[in-house]
């Protein structure tokens, strides 16, 4: 079997905050077309890992290769679309419309002083369309619900026409009904738009049902593989401690 092109590759990556180790000797590869879920306890290094991949934090050790280039030489930032965690805390009073926010997704593709072109605007409108927020184009982001704002930030990430979409705890603050539609939307992005997705969550149910592969992170790699092979009691004990249990593993399962 021929393996797909490696998009994100970490080799022996470690990271410490003020000599407190957060990530230790992490090695894994994300390939084109993957839908990877990253789970692990709070403080286990999930968000730190994402920030390292995005270049917001620099690893203390190890090598990171993005789309075949060392992270220092990687300039095509637009190839990684990032949906941050703290969307629900986004300033409600910030005077910006949905369109203005989504349009920032194009900036990674433009140089300083460069104006948005007609093509940029078309891509932005398309991203709003497929994210289902086109009708909110001129609404202030502060006036949207958590789920809608979530989609604004996804549209923003999609507007850069990325190859990889990284989402950090995307369903926090999104109600249950909207979560289901949201997961279907992610699945369709992966399936129909051939987008590689990395999805951080503390929600083991969601990860095991939605993603194709799972990475369990608690400072180092606890497991990496197919959800059904991995998410057993043994691994969860290693990940979360003795008393964790798989609950309602099959509820809400997709037909």
């Amino acid at each position, binding site marked *: 079997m021929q393996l797909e092109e490696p998009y994100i590759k970490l080799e022996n990556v470690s990271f410490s905050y003020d000599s407190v180790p957060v990530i230790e000797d992490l090695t894994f590869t994300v390939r084109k077309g993957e839908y990877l879920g990253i789970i692990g306890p709070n403080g286990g290094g999930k968000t730190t890992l994402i920030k390292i991949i995005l270049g917001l934090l620099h690893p203390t050790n190890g090598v990171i290769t993005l789309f075949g280039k060392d992270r220092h030489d990687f300039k095509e930032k637009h190839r990684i679309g990032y949906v941050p965690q703290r969307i629900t805390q986004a*300033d409600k009073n910030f*005077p910006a419309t949905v369109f203005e926010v989504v349009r920032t997704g194009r*900036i*990674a593709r433009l140089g300083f*002083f460069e104006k948005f072109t007609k093509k940029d605007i078309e891509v932005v409108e398309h991203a709003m369309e497929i994210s289902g927020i086109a009708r909110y184009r001129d609404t*202030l982001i502060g006036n949207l619900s958590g789920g809608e704002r979530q989609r604004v930030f996804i549209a923003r990430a999609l507007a850069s026409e990325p190859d990889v979409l990284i989402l950090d705890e995307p369903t926090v603050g999104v109600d249950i009904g909207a979560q289901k539609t949201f997961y279907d939307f992610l699945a369709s992005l992966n399936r129909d738009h051939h987008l590689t997705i990395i999805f951080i969550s503390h929600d083991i149910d969601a990860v095991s049902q939605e993603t194709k592969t799972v990475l369990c992170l608690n400072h180092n790699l606890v497991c990496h593989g197919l959800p059904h092979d991995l998410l057993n009691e043994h691994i969860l004990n290693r990940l979360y401690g003795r008393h964790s249990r798989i609950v309602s593993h099959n509820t809400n399962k997709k037909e």
Partner: protein
Amino acid sequence: MLEIFQYDFMVRAFEAGIAIGIVAPLIGMFLVVRRYSLMADTLAHVSFAGVAIGLLLKINPIFSAIGLSVVAAFGIESLRNSRRIFGESVLALFLSGSLAVAVIILSLAKGFNANLFSYLFGSISTVSTGDLLVIIALAIIVFLDVVFLYKELFFTSFDPELAEASGLPVKVINLMMVMLAAVAVAISIRIVGVLLIGALMVIPVISAMQYGRGFRITLILSVVFSLVSVITGLFASYYFDLASGGAIVLVALIFFILSLIVAKK
């Protein structure tokens, strides 16, 4: 033609006022949305220390004010980035520190006179032709910077982390932003005064924000409010012999109160 425009000093005041009226809210908008409103006041006090240095060394106070506030802007950003002090505390430090410097220099230079009052609250009669040229040239530079770097300034204000992840040099942009603010403040103190320039940068912006529009429209609205405040304030200042800064800010305040009432949902 109105009698008021027969005086050259009034024409200069209006020309400088319009330049400031456009630039102050443009910069103020980015400061307000970054929760950095106090920055304008801080830079104004630094400018005041600059004015004091200018009076002491007998150089044009506008130049010393611009020089010192740009240097201070650099210092503020460096200290803030070092994360050893809270951003707000850095501002408090520079605000009171520079006031202390100004007071000491002025008392050494025996500079407590009517001239000082005009720097504190603004004066329409003090803008010289040389000042006017400096004010307009720098206002144009600030204006063009904001226009050409609009998307970068917006993005870093909206979400600095996302902006950095997109490859923008956020620290450089922040530094530039603060330096532009320093210049905008320094050129405004002749007309609006040290104690009131912060108000001209902030009040038109928060008035415009009451209407719940997007960033660009809010920005344009704030410039309109600011310009009308400056022009009305200058007229009032002339006809009723008021300190121009006070008159301008009072009009801006009236706009704010009206906006609160009109825009109430």
